């Protein structure tokens, strides 16, 4: 493969988006396209798998392979794709309802596997496409304009959930801080293992609580933004010695504590990173042919099954 270079344009399609004007999804879309370009990934070697929701439509706007699947099942499909062809760069993406509500079981179990894929969650605190019900990330006591009452259950803390289930790269981004987000997505893709990027996303249509202005802190006396970059505080998410269980736990504990910061001081950036054996590597130990070939590249169409019949004699 000759090393070709790409720009964000190479990851565009001519399909008109049907997102609402000003939707934060545009920022995420742009960030994904730029990250792919920064990594110069050949578009045909990228598969973008999405769930159902406003966010789920994203692959239609990205000029790679794409599959817009079912509500809550994005990680299962993405896992199947990656297991069948681990040479692909696989991105899973979808809404917060998709990820932490109907998809919570798959979120948990995918985390454990440390398969090398990147999951980008569009976290707008609402079910956008079904008209603004509370999503699992909406905090208790909150009420967006389309809700009849306040939320009476705790919101999910995606960072904490990811920490407890085994993701080895855990970050939070902001849809309208594209430059920063491009960095997170780039590093998530580069990371060998299950990576989560939970992206705070504005939904101007339904989420009237956490708007662009709110994040920017326009309503605050000093007018300081509510978001800050974790890395600016000297925070070190990386486990330096992956074989040291104490460091692993310490870094998890540190990340957990930080993940509960909120209110007027919301960290974005990488919370936790651990470089350890991926699922693909482990499978390749069991199946050495996977060290050179992807499953789909193997010629398995002329198998000799007679030894199996021998066993039945």
């Amino acid at each position, binding site marked *: 493969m000759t090393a070709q270079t790409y720009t964000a344009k190479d990851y565009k*399609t*001519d*399909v008109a988006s049907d997102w609402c004007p000003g939707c934060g999804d545009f920022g995420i879309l742009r960030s994904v396209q730029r990250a792919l370009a920064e990594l110069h990934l*050949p*578009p*045909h*070697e*990228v*598969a973008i*798998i999405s769930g*159902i929701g406003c966010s789920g*439509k994203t*692959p*239609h706007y*990205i*000029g*790679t*392979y*794409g*599959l*817009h*699947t*079912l509500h809550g*099942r994005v990680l*299962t*499909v*993405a*896992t*199947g*794709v*990656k*297991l*069948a*062809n681990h*040479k*692909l760069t696989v991105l899973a993406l979808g809404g917060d309802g998709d990820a932490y509500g109907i998809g919570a*079981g*798959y979120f*948990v*179990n995918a985390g454990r596997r440390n398969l090398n894929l990147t999951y980008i969650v569009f976290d707008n605190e609402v079910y956008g496409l079904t008209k603004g019900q509370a999503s699992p990330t909406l905090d208790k006591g909150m009420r967006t304009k389309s809700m009849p009452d306040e939320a009476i259950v705790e919101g999910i803390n995606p960072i904490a959930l990811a920490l407890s289930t085994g993701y080895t790269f855990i970050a939070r981004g902001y849809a309208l801080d594209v430059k920063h987000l491009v960095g997170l997505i780039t590093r998530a893709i580069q990371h060998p293992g299950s990576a989560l990027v939970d992206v705070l996303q504005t939904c101007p249509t339904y989420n009237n609580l956490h708007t662009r202005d709110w994040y920017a802190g326009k309503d605050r006396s000093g007018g300081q933004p509510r978001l800050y970059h974790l890395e600016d505080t000297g925070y070190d998410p990386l486990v330096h010695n992956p074989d040291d269980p104490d460091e692993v736990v310490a870094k998890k504990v540190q990340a957990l504590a930080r993940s509960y910061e909120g209110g007027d001081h919301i960290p974005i950036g990488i919370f936790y990173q651990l470089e350890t054996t991926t699922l693909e590597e482990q*499978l390749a130990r*069991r*199946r*050495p*042919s996977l060290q050179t070939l*992807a*499953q*789909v590249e*193997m010629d*398995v*169409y*002329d*198998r000799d*099954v007679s030894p*199996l*019949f021998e066993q*039945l*004699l």
Partner: protein
Amino acid sequence: MVANQVSWMVGGPQGSGINAAAEILAKACSRGGLAVFSNIEYHSNIIGKHSFYRVRAGDGEIRSHVDEVHLLVALDKETLLGKKADPQVHHIGHLHQVVPQGGVIYDAALDMGTEEFGRGDLRLFPLPFLDLIEAGLRAGGKEGSGTQYQIMKNTVLLGATVALLDYDLGMVTTIIGESFTGRKAHLAHLNVEVARVAYAYVKEHFPAGIDFHLRAKADPPKQILIRGVVAAAIGKLKAGCGFQSYYPITPATDESFYLEARQADYDITVFQCEDEISSINMAVGAAYAGARSATSTSGPGLALMGEGLGFASITETAGPVVCLYQRGGPSTGLPTRTEQGDLHFALHPAHGEFEHIVVAPGDAVECFYATFEAFNWADRYQMPVIVLQDKFVANSYRTAPWFDTSGLTIDRGARFDPQTDAGGEAYRRYRFTASGVSPRSRPGQPGGMYRGTSDEHDPFGHIHEGIENRMSMVHKRRRKLALAAQEIPDEMKFQLHGPPVADVTLVSWGSPKGAILDAMAELSRHRSVNFLQVRLMRPFPVDAVARILREAKRSIAIEGNFSGQLTNLIREQTGVTVPQRIVRFDGRPFSQGDIVESVEKALATGDPVVELSHI
């Protein structure tokens, strides 16, 4: 009864090792060139509840079990007399199934008075199981108490069985040797010794033995002993399946285990998932990525897979192939028992109208070929395929000639070729074609990029809600099903066994096949009988089935369910009513005798429904 043919049964608590004993016996018979059919019945329980295993072996064709038993082996009293007092597990045991002059091997420690057997014709063989184990261990150079090696009771009964049936002990001990491998290899010779001791003991103490014997063929044919799960698994391997996801569930798990154990040798990725929603969608993902992909499950699992199947179908994914092992329903139901209760559901496993293929093999041999072809269909018609088995076919062993795989060819269907097809921006993954099939690309392939969706879409794969497009897409997808109906050969769709015209036409599908075939000789003594076995449930062979049934003088359906699902399907598809049906829905399989009796009853009474049960 046929000479040199024996029906043997062993009963005992779950976990007592009767499976191993029965399977070794079955294998020894098979290797001796005899026809064998064997199957187990057990509770949904790990240790303790009553289970029993039947082996029928001998000359002639054997494709089913019979209810009568020539030699019964009982590890406990329950096997003999049941549990009549306990309302929770009430049953009457198996002693009544023993034929006149039949033999009964049992543990002398059970302390059964002969009067407890309630009949004088039996040949009784009380054996000192623990003593024989100890003797065997000693012979093998190991001092040990029989209690500690209790599990070897199964080897004792095996040795004793071989002695009474006058079968080939050497063949049996060879197989015992083969069956202890890996961590258990060191136990092989001890078991061989125990078997020898038991054999010798019986020969010495019971020289009269029984009158039912088995003799191996002098020149045994090269035949295999196979069950449904394994046949399907080998079918998958032969077909080039590259990905199998699964979630454990009785009775499907065995198939995945079989594949998992061979993943390195055969370059297949076998993956245990967190549930069946994950299994189906991973399998769809793998198929989308270009692998031949599969999963297997039973009813409760399929109940979670419907959405994924609809998704595979609307995205025209080439597969996956789903092996569905039916078991007793509804809900958790009778999880270790057999039933043919999922046909309707397999035909309509989710909302909306979508295309898939449903094929229902009738025995292990058909399982192999149907599963193999399922992958060709998945690729050719770009839709999921359900292979409908049931617990009975899945778990029952039968002999079969070494499978002929020479005629099997792989057809991966229409694939996007960057050399000849319009690619890049011009690539239309869902191009409208006359056949309905559009060449598919796979991620990684240059020029074949597209975006697919579970929404209705245009030829490029983008969401499209327009009327014209919608109608064309529905027609496109339906054409593929019509094509499948046209191309799939008749012999895959149905088979008319027996004479082309007969006084009575039996109609069935799936696992009753063996018992029906075995029953036909006897049924045919009083009238001519043929048997229409329907294999392809979707697309349904409408014309052929309609013609055969319209021409039939009298037809009777036989199904392992309550409501007569095939009978209903036939009426829906052809308008023809099969006026009588024989059904069994107690979780137990049809025996040869069941078929004979119930068909005679149906013919005699004319009852629209004959319900079967053996208590």
